[in-house]
């Protein structure tokens, strides 16, 4: 199921990056000529041939996608380097930031959601819900800006970026790793806020539904202590939902991660995606878009697998079909 989805997505991505009128080479030649420089015809011919820019649309698509599968993401016109070299660590840093954000969202949303559901209509419930709503309504990028400002005043550290400047372009080491961890909390908190708010609401609604069911009443009637009752039955039921909810959480986290990365100028995919879109550097932009889509699709696959592992009903049903 995953591969056809990815194929359709890759086609959509390719259509989008192809849509702007003209191709990059035309812009590039015009730019060079306007500066009075001569164009190296060999290079143009090489690029044209490499990407089949003079060939029909479908042929270009197949050239691109077959290269993509074998790890050749194309050539970035602006940097005059293969996309793979331009991208470098960025993709892994994006994965890291997104992963930590998901963990953060869970760690915050889960206890609050449980508290809100078990203390429905209490002051705590109202207060936490309101806080969650404000998190939902404040645009991510502004929260990032405000945090940047506050962190600058309070801590005086350089908050922008994901690591200390001296570790840039350095190979991975323990020091670099620690520096990344130190810098990561701001983007994680900022990106996580809106996702957390939504998640709290959904967990609360879901757990409330479970709490109304009869087996809870039966448990209570038989004298199970409330904590044990909650832990043993309704919570396990809503765990299912909790895992499957990653499907709606991931796209929003990745969206948020992009804008926040632009504001905080993190060395992830965000800022480069923006510039590549603006300069119509199509293969670079296409790689980023494709990669972000892949990240969500794989994330959903993982959540499906987790769900099957957690819930015997789903697992057994799947086996019966086979």
């Amino acid at each position, binding site marked *: 199921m995953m591969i056809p989805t990815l194929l359709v*997505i890759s086609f959509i991505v390719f259509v989008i990056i192809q849509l702007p009128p003209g191709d990059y080479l035309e812009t590039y030649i015009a730019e060079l000529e306007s500066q009075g420089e001569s164009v190296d015809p060999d290079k143009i011919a090489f690029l044209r041939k490499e990407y089949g820019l003079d060939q029909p649309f479908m042929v270009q698509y197949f050239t691109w996608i077959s290269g993509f599968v074998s790890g050749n993401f194309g050539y970035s016109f602006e940097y005059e380097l293969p996309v793979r070299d331009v991208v470098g660590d960025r993709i892994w840093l994006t994965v890291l930031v997104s992963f930590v954000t998901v963990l953060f969202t869970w760690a915050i949303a889960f206890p609050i959601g449980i508290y809100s559901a078990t203390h429905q209509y209490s002051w705590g419930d109202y207060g936490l819900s309101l806080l969650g709503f404000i998190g939902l309504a404040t645009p991510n990028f502004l929260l990032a*800006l405000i945090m940047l400002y506050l962190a600058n005043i309070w801590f005086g550290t350089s908050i922008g970026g994901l690591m200390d400047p001296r570790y840039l372009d350095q190979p991975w080491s323990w020091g670099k790793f620690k520096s990344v961890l130190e810098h990561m909390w701001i983007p994680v908190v900022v990106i996580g806020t809106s996702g957390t708010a939504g998640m709290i609401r959904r967990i609360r609604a879901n757990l409330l539904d479970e709490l109304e069911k009869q087996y809870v009443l039966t448990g209570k009637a038989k004298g199970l202590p409330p904590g044990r009752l909650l832990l043993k039955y309704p919570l396990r039921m809503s765990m299912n939902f909790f895992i499957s909810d990653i499907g709606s959480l991931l796209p929003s986290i990745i969206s948020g991660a992009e804008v926040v990365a632009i504001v905080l100028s993190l060395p992830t995919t965000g800022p480069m995606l923006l510039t590549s879109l603006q300069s119509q550097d199509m293969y670079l932009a296409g790689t980023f*878009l494709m990669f972000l889509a892949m990240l969500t699709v794989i994330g959903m696959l993982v959540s499906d697998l987790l769900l099957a592992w957690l819930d015997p009903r789903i697992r057994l049903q799947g086996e019966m079909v086979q």
Partner: protein
Amino acid sequence: MNKEHYVSEAPFDPQSIERMTAGQEQYYMASRRRLIWWKLKRHKLAVWCGAILFMMYGTTLISEWIAPYYYQTRHTGHIYSPPQQLHLFHEGEFMGPFVYGNDTRLNMETLGREYVPNLEKVEKLRFFCSGDSYKFWGIVSSDFHFICPAEGSTMFLLGTDRLGRDLFSRITYGARISLLIGLGGITVSLFLGLLLGGLAGYYGGWVDSVIQRLTEIIRSFPELPLWMALSAILPVTWSPLLIFFGITVILALLDWTGLARSVRSKLLALREEDYCTAARLMGARPGRIIKRHLLPGFASHIIASATLSIPGMILGETALSFLGLGLRPPITSWGVLLNEAQNINVVALYPWLILPVVPVVIIILAFNFFGDGLRDAADPYK
């Protein structure tokens, strides 16, 4: 002995036991729309948020009257002027609303301009006055304003930007675009959602599976990067107005999936209801069944979910314009205004420039609460 069977002398009334109270009768006889209204009214928060939304949209009709200045008027002597506070009392004496005039001086250390309120200069506001001239909705020329600064002075309630333009006026004008783009986007996406969801739900079969796959794929894509990519396509040569429509359509293109989904599932569920089967057995045509029996059944749900997806669009426009990929000046929206606050140094020096975020947060919250209330009320028989 033959005993006669007892029969009561009182006249027979079949409803004597089941008679309803006046309140119950009103409830059972009320139309669906009335029931929804009653249920919504019980949800206090939703009603308040509805009122706020109504007011906000109301102001966009008369932005020109509310704003004290035209949104492009530059006050070159008042660049980056901080917000001026509104006062009522001067030295313990009631004066009516007024501001203290600012004195400008150059700070020789930072080489920046500083504005200091001068407690001598009491500048009373004028009401229902003539000020900057403008074209009302771009058509009728006028210079009427609800509030103006005192003659020959200035009043910047929320400060000014780098060109000395009044931020309050700009936020008022920006509301028109930001709020309209939500409505415009939802109209397009409602159309798409009804059409595709309706097709999927009514025909079923392979049409359904194709549309279902399509929605799944679009939903699995992170929205914002795709929005960014699509709005980067819009040609630079387009006029700001065309860009506005382009952005509206782009926002809608990724948003219809949720609506299509709920239309489809509602259609599938309602199709199996008894009253639908009854209508079919009585020989009603599909067109009549859809219009007469199905549409009223899910219209309220659709309106509720549409309301809940408007804030996403408003946030989308704000984010795009903030990044410089969305609307372009001279069109002014909240996102365009926030674009000026992109730089951390600007925010540190002139924090009032991030004020446009306040109406954004209010509108998003109001739409969320109102939509929640609507969704609860949409099914009044529960």
